[in-house]
């Protein structure tokens, strides 16, 4: 995950070392015919994580379904970020793959290094910022989905206090919190968001503890930017509401789960494979969101009133249509200073280095 990435000692990096070698043996298929385009995918987590790597693997399956015999698709899961990943990516290039998707932030340098040695192979790297003639980059505007979640939170919260279980104070997470609060305040101007930082991407126990602390502090809606469904389970048990992370997690909290931001990489992967097949591929920087369908909202909880669904749908559709900017000014930061002037919005470059929280966030 773009997210797991920045962490040198995550759960995944511990597990992955052991798994990578086995995964390489198991996951890599060698083809005989030279005809089909060989496409390789490199995942940071297990495809069974029901989150980030799982979402990329659904995209891989969509490529297989779309192009059939014209492609030969391989994936390697549980690849550690760092030297391990360079070995895996180089191995895929050596094995004759013409297009390689490396799907985590920490694969950036390894991808660039391998790409230099294989100028004829096309590389696509997710969530990074380094490009080359044969390396394109892509990312998702996940904050757009968080604006929809914020709208729902503002409408369902009775206490006006929303808890946010957050991982690391990095731009990706900060822009999500800000988009969430700005949208929530449009429907409920006095709403506050209390953030608890865990400084880890994955620790179910700590995530549950944080959710309990937030609910004890008066929050009746829990949002999260960490990987496990533990916070949602707490919300379910304590009578609060919650949102799923990266995929539909409703089965963990059938009552509390209102919706989730679902990542759908299939349209992007299909487009890129088609471009390579047609010989029309060129290095690009793609940042897709609701409009392109790279993110979707999971089905609403049956208990969510029709009125709230309509407003959430309206926000979603307006963002997709480009008529609503999640960061439309005026936007003030926590200290009250105007960061985005009225009538303006924020540039993508500034968004990607956002390091300030908006007014109304308690952290």
């Amino acid at each position: 995950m773009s997210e797991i990435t920045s962490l040198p000692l995550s759960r995944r990096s511990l597990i992955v070392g052991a798994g990578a070698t086995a995964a390489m043996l198991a996951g890599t298929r060698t083809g005989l015919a030279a005809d089909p385009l060989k496409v390789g995918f490199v995942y940071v987590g297990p495809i069974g994580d029901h989150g980030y790597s799982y979402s990329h693997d659904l995209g891989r399956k969509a490529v297989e379904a779309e192009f059939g015999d014209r492609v030969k698709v391989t994936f390697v899961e549980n690849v550690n970020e760092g030297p391990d990943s360079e070995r895996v990516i180089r191995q895929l290039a050596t094995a004759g793959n013409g297009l390689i998707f490396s799907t985590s932030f920490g694969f950036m340098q390894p991808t660039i290094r391998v790409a230099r040695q294989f100028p004829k192979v096309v590389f696509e790297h997710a969530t990074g910022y380094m490009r080359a003639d044969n390396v394109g980059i892509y990312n998702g505007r996940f904050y757009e989905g968080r604006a929809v979640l914020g709208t729902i939170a503002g409408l369902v919260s009775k206490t006006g206090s929303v808890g946010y279980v957050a991982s690391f104070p990095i731009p990706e997470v900060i822009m999500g919190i800000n988009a969430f609060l700005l949208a929530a305040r449009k429907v409920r101007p006095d709403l506050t968001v209390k953030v608890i930082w865990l400084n880890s991407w994955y620790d179910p126990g700590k995530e549950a503890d944080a959710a309990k602390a937030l609910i004890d502090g008066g929050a009746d809606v829990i949002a999260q930017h960490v990987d496990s469904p533990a916070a949602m389970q707490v919300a379910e048990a304590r009578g609060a509401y919650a949102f799923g992370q990266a995929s539909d997690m409703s089965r963990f909290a059938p009552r509390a789960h209102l919706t989730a931001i679902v990542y759908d990489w299939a349209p992007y992967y299909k487009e890129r494979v088609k471009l390579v097949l047609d010989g029309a591929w060129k290095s690009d920087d793609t940042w897709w969101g609701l409009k392109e369908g790279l993110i979707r909202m999971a089905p609403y909880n049956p208990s969510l009133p029709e009125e709230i669904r309509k407003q959430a749908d309206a926000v979603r559709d307006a963002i997709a249509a480009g008529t609503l900017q999640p960061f439309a000014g005026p936007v003030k930061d926590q200290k009250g200073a105007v960061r985005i002037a009225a009538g303006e919005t924020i540039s993508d470059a500034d968004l990607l280095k956002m390091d300030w929280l908006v007014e109304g966030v308690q952290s």
Partner: protein
Amino acid sequence: MIDFLIPVMAAAISAATPLLLAATGELVVERSGVLNLGIEGMMLMGAMAGFAAALLTGSHLAGLLAAALAGMLMALVFAVLTLSLSANQVASGLALTIFGIGLSALVGAPYVGQPVPALPKLDIAGLSDLPVAGPLLFRHDGLVYFSVAAVAATWWFLNRTHAGLKLRAVGESAQAAHALGHPVIAIRYAASLFGGAMAGLAGAFLSLSYTPMWMEGMTAGRGWIALALVVFSAWRPWRALVGAYLFGGVGIVQLHAQGAWGLPSEMFSMLPYVATVLVLTVISARSQAGGTGSRAPADLGKPFRASR
């Protein structure tokens, strides 16, 4: 204030319980002279097996038994390697952790995302409804009380029974214990299996009570904290209890205190570790000054071969 403190303290007790279970087991293992670094792996196997058994049979008791058994099987692998085959204990323990992480993920894959009811909480008419003590002391599940009872039993066993004395003798000087006719290897096997069972239960507490679900790697490093707690406790059961509650408490307080004094969140995340360093320093300073020592069992980590 009391309204704020009660949920914090109740949560701290929960957070401390898996650490305490695993640390109590490891404490006995180390007292017998065996250093098993594989707690994390045994906990994960316990978490997975306990969850799977509870899910398949619908019985929490079956889940707990399966968790203890899974932990013991893992400990058995370790014991065969290090005690019967005299393999290096540090390397074998690390291997056990990596093995446990991988195996639990593999075997547990079908159980990811399945729901299981949490262990029932104690509900004693009268006691559980007491104003302060009720939520603090009388609304936990059985494993919480078991962990405290296990500390008491371990203290009694080590300090007040003949068998406990033998176990300590084996840990201090295996050769001397052997010369006196005590079965060194058998005692170390028994201690290792106990440690495995306790680590398994610690894992089951996570997957059946704390966050009732199974996900790979869900122990998130708690096995290593339990290992540190044993050193922190200077190999004394009651100190392990104090250490676990201190560690659990600081971890919970930091969540509630975030944003309170305008300090960055990373400072709060550091607190449990700062507390550990401080306490270790105090213990060490006291033992240097001739107080109650923090000396490890003399034969800790040394393989034993009977000399004839």
